[in-house]
């Protein structure tokens, strides 16, 4: 490669590193500052006061609330998405393209509009707020879980199930010892994304919960909309970022271990790009 091109590439990489890191820099600095007055470029005193001062005040219950919503949404949306993906792969559905489009539709429609309309319906049906939140968020997560599980099923070979059945395996044994291990990477990705949809939601919890359900994002929003509470905003934000980030890092580590433990796996001519540690979409919403 020619030298000027290499310089351009290096500059671009550097600029992009700044672009992706800069927006999160204030969180790290504010969360680790004890005193940061005036126009000083860095805090005067460093420490963990931001965290110790923010604990209490309902933070624990908000954390548990977010965790519960994330776990329940993942527990509902992942199996439902996996089953739908299996049905689509089996090829026995009447209108497969219609079903596939319907399951992707929640991505294209504004959640606030759906929830504002649904509010009256849920009230008239006397659906408890927590159940309503979980239902809407499960539907919001379904496009991601269905998409990832369909991708997982593309490479899935149904012959393994037939062989196991011929050898006398029960349905449960097939599910536990054939299907689950073969689809494990897809299931892990789908579970992670569905959890994120629940964990990071703000508007659905706000609208359906009507202020009775307090989650971490609700707490962050109310703190951030006020003034003079920078360390608290930063500490709460880091509390919201830590669990998914740690999970991602662990997954990357585990994948690395597995790949290096089995160097002779077939059909992998090239090392996969590091971005493939995570498959797809969004820090949801």
């Amino acid at each position, binding site marked *: 490669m020619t030298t000027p091109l290499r310089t351009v590439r290096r500059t671009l990489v550097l600029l992009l590193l700044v672009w992706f890191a800069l927006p999160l820099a204030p969180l790290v600095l504010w969360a680790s500052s004890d005193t940061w007055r005036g*126009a000083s470029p860095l805090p005067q005193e460093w420490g963990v006061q931001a965290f110790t001062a923010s604990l209490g005040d309902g933070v624990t219950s908000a954390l548990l609330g977010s965790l519960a919503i994330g776990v329940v949404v993942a527990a509902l949306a992942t199996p439902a998405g996996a089953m739908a993906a299996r049905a689509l792969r089996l090829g026995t559905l009447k209108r497969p393209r219609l079903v596939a489009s319907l399951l992707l539709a929640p991505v294209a429609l504004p959640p606030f*509009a759906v929830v504002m309309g649904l509010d009256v319906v849920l009230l008239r049906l006397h659906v408890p707020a927590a159940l309503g939140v979980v239902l809407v968020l499960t539907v919001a997560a379904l496009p991601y879980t269905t998409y990832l599980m369909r991708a997982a099923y593309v490479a899935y070979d149904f012959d393994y199930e037939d062989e196991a059945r011929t050898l006398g395996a029960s349905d449960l044994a097939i599910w536990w010892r054939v299907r689950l291990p073969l689809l494990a990477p897809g299931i892990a990705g789908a579970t992670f994304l569905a959890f994120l949809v629940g964990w990071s939601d703000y508007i659905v919890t706000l609208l359906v919960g009507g202020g009775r359900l307090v989650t971490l994002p609700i707490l962050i*929003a109310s703190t*951030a909309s006020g003034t003079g509470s920078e360390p608290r905003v930063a500490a709460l934000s880091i509390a*919201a970022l830590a669990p998914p*980030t740690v999970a991602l890092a662990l997954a990357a580590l585990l994948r690395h271990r597995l790949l290096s433990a089995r160097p002779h796996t077939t059909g992998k001519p090239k090392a996969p790009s590091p*971005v493939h540690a995570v498959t797809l979409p969004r820090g949801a919403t």
Partner: protein
Amino acid sequence: MDRRGAVLVAPAVVAVLFVLGAGLGSAVLQSVGLIPLVGDPALQFTGYVGEREVLAAVGLSLLIASASTSVAALVGLSTALLLVGSGRGRRMLAALVTASIPVPHLVGAASVGLLLSDSGLMSRWLGVPAQAWPSLVAGAWPTAVIFEYAWKESAFVALVVSASLASRLPDYQETAALLGARPWARFRHVALPLATPALLAASAIAFVYTLGSYEVAWLLGAAYPEPLPVLSYRLFTSTDLTARPDAMAVAVMTTVIAGSVALTALALLRRTAAWR
């Protein structure tokens, strides 16, 4: 028809049909006054008569969504091309992109507020006093809002595009280089056509998401004009109960715009040769 397939797909389909059907159906009925909070149902279309604040909201929402999506597409594509290449700093860049994905938009907005406000990190680092700092947050232009969306969605675009390129691009690039293609020709005739379907799909998802998202503009935007979701939410929670149909009309309009953009993108995707 095979019952097994229908049974497998039922939970997901029933949940989606109920939430979307009941939610949007009820929003449409409320927007034309057929489910009033007080008084008798009476058909009315006042919510759809283009008031000045609604038109301003449509304009602002489209501005925010198109500006942030354009930047996200450009930055995301550049990042993806660097990620599937072999240059230095690739792993570091990949780690940062991956780490940005699970950041909730609300947390991103809170952090961008701390970065760009008049006593924020940038004004401290650049040594500009708060009084002289341009009002990027809650100013006349939605700068901070666009920046937050552009940043978060660029990571999303980068991830989707690089995933679609990773397995194919290096081989094609090598062949093109062996055949004597210069770097620009390799970009224009190899990388870009290969990346187009994923880029289009990711950009459409980013656009539609931005259009329907509430918290970023609520936290970082000005009081007036408001984008569609913020206007709709304000009307929805208004003490004036007769504002409910107006709130629903704004919600329905947002849904129609988002749905049309999604369908257009889908039609365009079907026409690109590399689709499927």
